[in-house]
């Protein structure tokens, strides 16, 4: 009995994302679709913050654009009575991520902050994670990208420039999270305060549709947003247990 229960305990632990009993932080995003105007400021901000290459017209036509966050556009209804819906789509940082199990070298894994981390140096480019991801938010470096001068001078020094043959995706601006945690530590504080970390997309959203924070803090704004009655998660039926909550648009 004890042996069996011990085995089951360790099995359950093994099945936990990243093998953590508990996350230190549980970074979560809430997106209010009622407020989203589809302006794509988040897309541009992300591009600038994370050194995402501009692939150019030719590659774009081949379906190789790089956008860690993209605005998906869906039409509803027929012409006179038509509605346009926007939904920003980025890595959902699933706690039961399909991409994490498939990587043969463990280049993508769950870290102690509940983030789905991508280790560029470890990636061998099987692209299996992109196939397994139901949200299609993983982007592959088909070539070595370069930035024409003087654009190369504005690359973010906190973010790796990815080489060819490597997969990449939204990190929830992990460099900012790391910085905030370091600051919190230097201040002698134990936790990062709510609103202290903002990924580039959240920071740039003019209508404040995007909210980011620690789900473990019940006073945080994101905690309130994710418990809004309008909340849902994309493709929740796949049991990916994602960390991005969407608040449904309510038609007047």
């Amino acid at each position, binding site marked *: 009995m004890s042996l069996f229960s011990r085995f089951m305990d360790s099995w359950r632990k093994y099945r936990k994302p990243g093998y953590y009993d508990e996350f230190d932080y549980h970074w979560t995003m809430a997106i209010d679709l009622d407020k989203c105007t589809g302006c794509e400021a988040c897309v541009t901000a992300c591009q600038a913050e994370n050194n995402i290459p501009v692939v150019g017209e030719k*590659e774009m036509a*081949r*379906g*190789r*654009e790089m956008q860690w966050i*993209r605005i*998906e*556009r*869906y039409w509803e209804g027929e012409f006179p009575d038509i509605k346009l819906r926007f939904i920003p*789509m980025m890595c959902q940082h699933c706690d039961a991520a*399909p991409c994490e*199990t*498939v*990587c*043969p*070298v*463990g280049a993508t894994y769950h870290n102690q902050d509940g983030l789905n981390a991508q280790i560029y140096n*470890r*990636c*061998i*480019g*099987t*692209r*299996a994670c*992109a*196939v*397994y991801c*139901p*949200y*299609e938010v993983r*982007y*592959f*470096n*088909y*070539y*070595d990208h370069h930035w024409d001068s003087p654009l190369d001078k504005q690359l973010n020094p906190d973010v790796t420039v990815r080489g*060819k*043959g*490597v*997969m990449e995706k939204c990190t929830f601006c992990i460099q900012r999270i790391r910085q905030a945690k370091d600051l919190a530590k230097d201040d002698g504080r134990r936790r990062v305060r709510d609103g202290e970390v903002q990924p580039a997309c959240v920071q740039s959203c003019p209508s404040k549709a995007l909210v980011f924070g620690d789900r473990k803090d019940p006073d945080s704004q994101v905690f309130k947003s994710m418990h809004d009655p309008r909340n849902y998660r*994309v*493709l929740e039926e*796949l049991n990916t247990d994602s960390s991005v909550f969407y608040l449904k648009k309510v038609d007047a």
Partner: protein
Amino acid sequence: MATETNNLGYTDIHDDVVRSIVKTGPKYYIALATAGGTTLLCFFFPWFYQLYYGIGAAGINHPGVWGTYLASFIFWIGLSHSGTLLSCVLHLTNSTWRKAMYRSAEAMTLFSLVVAATYVMVHVGRPWFIHWAVPYPNQMELWPNFRSPLMFDVMAIGTYITGSTIFIYMGTIPDFAAVRDRTTGWRNTMYTLLSLGWRGTDKEWHRLHWAYTFLAVLIIPLAVSVHSIVSWDFAMSVVPGLHQTIFAPYFVVGAIYSGTAGIVTVMFVLRKSMGFEQYITKLHFDNLGKLLLVLSLIWTYINGVELFTAWYSGTSEEYEALGYKLFGFYAPLYWEMILFCAVAPMLMFSTRFRTSFVPMLILSIAINIGMYTERFLIIATSLSRQYLPDAWGVYVPSLVEISIMVGSFALFTTLFLVFVKIFPSVSMYEVKETMATPTMEPLAPATGIPA
């Protein structure tokens, strides 16, 4: 079962097989130069181009991140299947008709696996780090991800290559010894080393037979597991069209199917080019034809099951994937596959068809074209229509991919051409077992044969 080899003596077999190794005509050199040149030009040159500029040289794009490289990988793994598997099953069931063809079938396995393993390198974005997928103690203190089906795949294929290599080598030792005794110079030295001092004593025969049967039993489950695991690369995802429990048997049957068709092709070519008309006979084509027919029926059934499950699931994404497969962008390829792999093989119900060499050759090639299409479609149609309609797209292979695909056949041919000059491509000692005992007429000193 007596075969048409009855009118041959032991010496004739030795003569024929050693001749096929030692006597090399200009035709062989032309063939080797063509195959080798094509390999360099169509396989290695585009691959190096791709290594230099990045995998963007292939046609892969955002929804279609996997392409023909993976399809070719599955195809070659599949082609590898029948060789050793068929040889093992037939060995264990004491089918004498296996004996003339199994050596070349096993070689096909081995070289298909080599090409498939090369394809893994071609497929990944950073092949220079491919060894990270293998568990070995390293200074980074990192292990591969043991939950990953891709990692299972590395293990399964590694085991299968090792097993097949030992199996084909061990079965050839007595024949190496026989060739050793009939050659001189550097060949003699090489075969002396390869034959591991084989003398043909009773004890040696006993041990060889025991070890050979042991390996045959070992390799059958291995062959089944390899393609099941390859199928899990797909089936373990949540992609509609890939996420199906039928995938493991589907891939195994498909593999044996295309592999058997491949053997028919190779046997036809060997029979014509090496002058093995007396060893590879109508009987072999008839038996393989029956096997192909059964496999084609199972394959058709599984295809039906696949469509049914998608329809029965009742979910919109499975419906979309199903409709796209049957009537979408890739639909002509789908119906071509059905024609080549499900409809055309029905011809083999006729004995006359099964025993005609050229029609069987054409059909066997058609089946493999169809099976290649199947592998391509599994990837291309499923990835094109996933959950979010915004990320739908179409993947079309690039020139580099097509060139590498052509080149891979040349690579396979090159390896095979080298093989026939080193390995006795028909198992001499086993063909002799099927023959009548020699009479008292004087014969050349029999080697590798118990007196």
